[in-house]
């Protein structure tokens, strides 16, 4: 990569590219705009948003000099985009002025920013007090869904797919944005790789919408109309978790809950593997060690919780709106698996309020928060591949303490993993866990300050739910509750956690180091 003459980061290149990103994103609000016109709702928020995006985009683009998008500029571009886009994403909420995210005060703005960041980072945590089309309108709730869909595969991956000028820095940009160890180039051209990934992502979204709609149309789940089918498809595939329904997936019949599960599993799988499947190599998916560990982890956690629920040990209080669980095999299996798949893939949907669970079952679920889906998927948190590598290098250490001369590469499937990757994995896991611990403490302290009653489990769940881009936690932030009770300061901190969590921490931390800005 070429360097800028004076050795500093040429931030203007990055900022100008953020402008380009905004300019192209101006198309996105047109979808809720059409809905607003169809439902006879206020179209102004989306017109204003689109206009702001175009104006700001062109404005920022004026900064473009003749510098190249190098390594450091790519880092800066990714972090900046993920800050600027959610900021602009607050405009529709603020213009509409409805609910907790609409008031033009500091608190209202923080709420809008929280909702927008939670959307684009596919977290799914919400501060909407009441989630209802009656308060916010169909169009506004669809904007919320759409923001998750755009963020899921990555705004910048989308830009690489569209913009030819990103053919050189594109791989670098995608590497920073895509979750996992490193991107896999599927085709000789990075642009085609980005298009392939977005194509697969879009295709699965359409498939999910069709399946949901058909189940609703045949009368098994009458609540699932076209609007809900599209809205939920848009947040299943990015592992987002927003729902226009206040009771999330609990609002739909069991058939829908079963149908959502496979799509969540797909969303938490490395999309590159599907590319090979469509290319006629299905074994690349079924033999993939991460995919197998991923399924195994969900199976083990899911069956454990299902067994607890079936035996009646998993429930502390009777949940509302849900059929009797203890002794009912289908219901306990569905509730156990659904919650585990939703959490492991970091989607954050809920088919029941797991606040009613016994702490034993809740603790099992808390560990599932840390797993995360596969690398190269839309999922957040630590990711299965990292856990597999960590456990393998631990057993390696045990082996080499008996055979000090042994050369024992850590293997992932048949491939040996190089040592620098192992080191990076350990660093990431350590930073993630440290940040989780520190955030738990900070959130706890802030709740003391504001007089919000939190249990340790709840405080931990808040930290991991935002840092891991999962969404719901336990207690006050349970799946049917929201993050509204926290102070604006705490919410801003959570916005920060969601931001760095989506970009896997290091991409953001690196631009905060002094050496990034020096020669």
């Amino acid at each position, binding site marked *: 990569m070429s360097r800028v003459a004076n050795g500093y980061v040429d931030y203007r290149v990055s900022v100008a590219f953020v402008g380009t990103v905004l300019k192209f994103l101006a198309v996105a609000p047109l979808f809720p705009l059409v809905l607003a016109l169809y439902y006879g709702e206020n179209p102004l928020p989306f017109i204003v948003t689109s206009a702001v995006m175009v104006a700001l985009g062109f404005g920022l683009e004026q900064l473009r000099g003749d510098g190249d998008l190098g390594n450091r500029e790519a880092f800066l571009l990714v972090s900046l985009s993920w800050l600027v886009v959610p900021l602009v994403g607050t405009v529709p909420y603020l213009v509409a002025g409805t609910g907790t995210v609409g008031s033009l005060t500091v608190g209202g703005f923080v709420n809008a920013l929280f909702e927008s960041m939670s959307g684009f980072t596919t977290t799914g945590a919400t501060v909407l007090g009441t989630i209802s089309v009656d308060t916010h309108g169909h169009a506004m709730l669809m904007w919320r869904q759409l923001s998750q869909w755009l963020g899921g595969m990555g705004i910048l991956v989308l830009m690489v797919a569209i913009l030819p000028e990103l053919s050189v820095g594109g791989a670098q940009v995608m590497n920073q944005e895509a979750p996992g160890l490193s991107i896999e180039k599927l085709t000789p051209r990075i642009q085609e790789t980005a298009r392939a990934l977005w194509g697969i992502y879009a295709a699965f979204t359409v498939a999910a919408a069709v399946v949901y709609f058909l189940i609703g149309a045949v009368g098994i789940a009458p609540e699932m109309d076209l609007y809900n089918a599209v809205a939920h498809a848009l947040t299943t595939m990015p592992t987002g978790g927003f729902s226009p329904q206040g009771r999330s997936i609990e609002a739909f019949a069991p058939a829908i809950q079963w149908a959502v599960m496979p799509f969540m599993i797909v969303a938490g799988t490395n999309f590159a593997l599907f590319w090979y499947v469509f290319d006629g190599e299905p074994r690349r998916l079924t033999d993939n060690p991460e995919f197998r560990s991923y399924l195994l982890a969900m199976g083990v956690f899911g069956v454990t919780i299902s067994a607890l629920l079936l035996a009646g040990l998993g429930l502390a209080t009777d949940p509302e709106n849900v059929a009797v669980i203890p002794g009912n095999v289908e219901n306990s299996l569905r509730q156990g698996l659904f919650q585990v798949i939703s959490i492991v893939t970091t989607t954050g949907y809920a088919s029941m309020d797991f606040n009613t669970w016994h702490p034993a079952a809740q603790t099992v679920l808390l560990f599932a928060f840390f797993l995360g889906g596969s690398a190269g998927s839309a999922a957040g948190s630590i990711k299965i591949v990292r856990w597999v590598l960590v456990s393998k290098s631990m057993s390696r250490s045990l082996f080499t303490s008996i*055979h*000090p*001369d*042994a*050369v*024992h*590469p850590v*293997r992932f499937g*048949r491939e*040996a993993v190089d040592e620098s990757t192992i080191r990076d994995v350990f660093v990431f896991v350590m930073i993630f866990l440290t940040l989780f611990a520190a955030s738990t403490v900070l959130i706890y302290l802030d709740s003391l300050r504001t007089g919000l009653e939190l249990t340790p489990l709840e405080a931990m769940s808040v930290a991991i739910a935002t840092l891991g881009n999962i969404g719901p936690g336990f207690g006050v932030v349970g799946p049917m509750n929201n993050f509204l009770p926290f102070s604006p300061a705490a919410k801003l901190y959570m916005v920060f956690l969601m931001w760095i969590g989506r970009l896997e921490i290091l991409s953001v931390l690196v631009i905060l180091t002094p050496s990034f800005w020096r020669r």
Partner: protein
Amino acid sequence: MRVVIVGAGEVGSNIAESLAQTHDVVVVDRDPEMVDALTYSHDVLPIQGDGTDVDTLEEADVGDAEMVIASTDDDETNIVTCGAANVLGDAFTIARTKSPKYLKAWERGRHAFGVDFMVCTDLLTAEAIVGLAGLPTAQDVDTFVDGLVQMTEFKIPEGSPVAGQTVAEADKFDSLTFAGILRADEIIIPSGTTRLRAGDDVVAIGSPDSMRQFSSAIAPQEDGPQDIVIVGGGEIGYQTARLLEERGFTPRLIEQDEERARWLAEKLPKTTVLNSDATDQELLERENIGLADVVVAALENDQQNLLATLLAKRMGTDRAIAVVDTGDFSDLFEAVGIDVAVSPRKVTAEEITRFTRARRAENVAIIEGDQAEVLEFEIDAESLLVDRPIQESAADFPEGVVIGAITRDGERITPRGDTVVRKGDHVVVFAETAVLETVTEQL
């Protein structure tokens, strides 16, 4: 048949020696001294020149030759020689290569580089080592009829329960035939009353299973090797470990170079690769090399191999196999206590000779010192054996011939007096060198 051999090193001159009696052999070498030496030692036509040079090949009259054997120490030279020979005529070309990478490409196309048959030294050596490592007391192993039949040369150690027994007493195995006994440079065709002695080399032909059983009858204290240590991770060491992995072993491999060790560890998932000096006694003790069943030394040179295997032997290893680059040292190694010395050059020369002779027979193994051969034939209508019980046809064969094994439609048949041989059967025969010609014609 006119045969042109390019390269008069150990491999080339070995092949020349064994072919000279029956063929017109032309040997090409760049080194005038080698060429001179050949003139006097063998009945061949030596030509001094570069084998990759078309002029030299024309001088050797490759156009009229039926076979060209490229056996220099350089892989690329051998391949280019075969390619050039291909342009000049339609001789059958054989190339010797060291690295298996060329073999890989050749196996895909079977005529890649204009080579009709490729012999990979390192792979052959590794195969020989693996065959030997699997069978304690085995001196030489060759397979026939796609692995259905195995020929093994066993050495009867001192104190073996088999020593002193008659052949009839020792032969408790259905599908095994004692074909010959090598005793003091002499070949004995055993009968039921022949007594086995310690120090004898017994040539047995039969199923691979019966070979293992006989092996443990000879040395009952060893129940087949479990723990195999390979010293030296060069190509031979790597291939040996790879083949052992394929056979279900989990060997240990000691390699001194750190980068190479890492490479090996990545390529060999079931092998424990140790990065250390193989002559570091502390390491050998820490890793309990003395308890290993087999230690294979495949280091850079003969001295290191000798040292490593001697050390291992001294620490108590049951069996030491050393790779010997200079074929002449083989006897010396075995004299000082190394169980088997494997010479890559000898193995290669043998394989190439095997192949040239196998044009009459399906496959050939040469017994130590060229005293006898084990041959595989497919029975045709003209064969002496066809449609007759063995008892009857045996009388028509000369002395010094033993029928070791018969296979029909991919199944083994144990040869008995009344077994009737049919057309299309494969027969594995042990024959002394003196009667080879006759036997080949009769079958």
